[in-house]
């Protein structure tokens, strides 16, 4: 077991633990020192098998059922297994799915290590398969051939050969190799590669004539011998690279030169969040706890950040308000100062300006519409009477009243009158909407000789003339020289006429005219 701690491209530490009691204890202590930092387990085991199968294209429980049956068939005794969908094949109308099934054939190997992970409550994000992780490395080789064999060595005793077809892993083998330190290492490697080729041909994965690209990662010590050996071979397209050169290309920061390529794959496993291949739910328990813990921490920090942000906003707003308050207070002071200055300009302190305005407006209103004189009405009536020479006016009365039938001017409320009487009187004047000029005239006909017919005719002519003039609203003859109304009593003395005496004959008349006053200034 190698435990590596990566910080981006930098390897902070690499610790090796033997699979014995002491090694397990050390591993326990090491994990405890990590204080629940999440880890990934990258497997490079001999006891890992790969099977490529084709199943009908299905989804949901049907697919799961088929996969489970295949798992039971190939990995009956293992609960560490994984199915990777690699392609959807079309055969006419039928669709099929190509799957790579893989599983551990000896799961007991993992048990002591996983127990320590559980004991130390180390969050295990996943158990990854090294051949699947190396898929991304193969793309970096940019091989022209469809089939690529990646040959690498993570430990001295085993050689890993991973086969990729069209960039997809189809097979991986970990074979023991004893000649790492002594013997003909290059020949052994080539022999194993040829064995793999034969297997691929026998399984009809590739054709016998297909060229296979072989990418070998080795240390500097074996580089020359491998290059010499591979140059002699015309069948394969070899590319032998020093693992330390490849590490430089990948820009990994390591302190020591590497004999093995484990750092490459371990770094590859940390580069992106790979899907978990083998870890079961209960083994990832503390990873879920870790996620919850991280979520809680992120939420807490977010809460604090939001609350601090809101606090800043509130405080900012508060200070803005305070600044506005100060500005407004200064402005208010200016207003007050100006107010004091302007207030001194007001000279009449015994009356408010609005009252002054009301008083002046009231006076103007009175002048405009509510001051009356009989002159105009009297002149008008006099002109009409002047048309009739025989008529003489003895008395003329002009009255201003709110009723057209009034006989005297409207009375007004005395200032010291009791409230009830005042209210009654005032309400009457408020109800009245119109104002009338009323003229009552009494007169007689001059040089009257007793001819009542003529007198009555004259009065009728006068009445008609006044009515036709349209200057008055009402023209009413209240007394005629002789009252010949059917409803009235009539008496007289006709003896004078026989005696031809006319001295005592009178032809009195009286009439009344009314005109509505136009109140324009309401």
């Amino acid at each position, binding site marked *: 077991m190698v435990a590596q701690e990566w910080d981006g491209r930098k390897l902070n530490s690499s610790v090796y633990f033997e699979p014995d009691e002491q090694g397990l204890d050390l591993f326990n202590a090491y994990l405890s020192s990590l204080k629940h930092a999440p880890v990934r387990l990258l497997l490079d085991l001999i006891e890992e098998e790969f099977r490529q199968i084709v199943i009908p294209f299905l989804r949901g429980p049907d697919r799961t059922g088929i996969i489970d049956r295949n798992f039971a068939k190939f990995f009956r005794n293992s609960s560490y297994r994984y199915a990777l969908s690699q392609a959807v094949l079309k055969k006419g109308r039928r669709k099929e799915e190509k799957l790579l099934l893989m599983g551990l054939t000896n799961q007991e190997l993992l048990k002591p290590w996983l127990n320590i992970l559980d004991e130390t409550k180390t969050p295990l994000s996943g158990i990854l398969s090294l051949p699947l992780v190396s898929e991304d490395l193969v793309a970096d080789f940019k091989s022209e051939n469809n089939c690529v064999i990646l040959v690498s060595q993570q430990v001295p005793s085993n050689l890993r050969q991973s086969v990729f077809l069209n960039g997809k892993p189809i097979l991986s083998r970990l074979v023991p190799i004893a000649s790492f330190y002594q013997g003909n290492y290059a020949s052994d490697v080539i022999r194993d590669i040829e064995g793999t080729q034969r297997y691929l041909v026998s399984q009809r994965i590739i054709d016998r004539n297909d060229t296979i690209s072989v990418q070998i990662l080795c240390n500097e010590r074996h580089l020359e011998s491998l290059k010499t050996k591979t140059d002699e071979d015309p069948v394969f397209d070899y590319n032998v690279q020093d693992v330390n050169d490849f590490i430089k290309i990948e820009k990994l920061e390591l302190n020591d030169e590497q004999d093995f390529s484990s750092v490459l794959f371990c770094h590859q496993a940390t580069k992106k969040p790979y899907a978990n291949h083998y870890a079961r739910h209960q083994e990832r328990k503390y990873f879920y706890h870790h996620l919850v813990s991280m979520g809680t921490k992120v939420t807490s920090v977010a809460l604090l950040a939001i609350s601090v942000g809101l606090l800043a906003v509130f*405080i900012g707003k508060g200070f803005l308000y305070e600044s506005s308050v100060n500005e*407004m207070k200064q402005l208010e002071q200016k207003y*007050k100062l100006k107010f004091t200055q302007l207030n001194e300009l*007001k000279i009449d302190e015994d009356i408010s*300006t609005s009252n002054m*305005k009301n008083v002046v407006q009231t006076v103007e209103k*009175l002048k405009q519409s509510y001051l009356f004189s009989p002159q105009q009405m009297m002149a008008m009536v006099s002109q009409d009477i002047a048309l009739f020479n025989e008529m003489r006016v003895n008395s*003329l009365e002009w009255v201003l009243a709110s009723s057209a039938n009034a006989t005297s001017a409207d009375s007004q409320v005395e*200032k010291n009158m009791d409230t009830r009487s005042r209210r009654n009187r005032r309400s009457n004047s408020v109800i009245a909407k119109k*104002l009338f000029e009323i003229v009552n005239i009494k007169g007689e006909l001059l040089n009257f000789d007793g001819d009542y017919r003529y007198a009555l005719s004259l009065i009728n002519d006068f009445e008609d003339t006044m009515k036709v003039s349209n200057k008055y609203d009402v023209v009413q003859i209240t007394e005629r020289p002789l009252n010949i109304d059917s409803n009235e009593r009539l008496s007289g003395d006709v003896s004078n006429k026989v005696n031809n005496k006319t001295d005592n004959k009178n032809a009195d008349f009286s009439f009344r005219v009314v005109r509505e006053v136009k109140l324009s200034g309401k």
Partner: protein
Amino acid sequence: MENKIDIQFLKRPLIFFAISLVLSLVFIVLGWQFQNSKNAEYIQAKSSLSSSHRVYKQLVEDLDLLDQYKKAYKEYKKTGLIGPERRLSWIETLEAVNDVLKLPRLTYALQPQQEFSRPGLKVERNIVIGSTPMDLTIDLLHEEDLFAVFEGIAGNINNLFSIDSCRITRMGKGDSVLSTKSANLTSKCLMRWITVDVQNK
């Protein structure tokens, strides 16, 4: 391996969360209260400023009105149109008028002051219009003398008056020729001296 929730594992983050929650609430509540208190001060200052502005604006408007009405008001007050009634001035005016017209008779009778009302006349509540009825008895040589009296009064005093009623009656009977030395007509008129006053309340 059990699959239960390990509270011990989550203890620290949960405590951190609880503290964060409490702190957040405290921050928000304190901040909110601070902002509210400042907002209340702002609203109060705004209201106060608005009030000051209103008073100031009113004063400016008052000053405009003052300029507009001051002259007329002072004139009215000086002539006695505004303020208490000025009976003595009225009588002196009548005397002055008759000094010119030299009418054979011009008598007057002032009655107690009354309120003045006319249909449609509406004034502000604190404005009081008073009217003092004056019965005038005037002997006239000619009816035009009556109007000469009113015109004379108007010319001698800058007060408001209105005539409510007037009766002109011919003196003597049957004479069609008017005398040039004695009164031919007599008139009785009711006129009202109008005063305007304001109750400063």
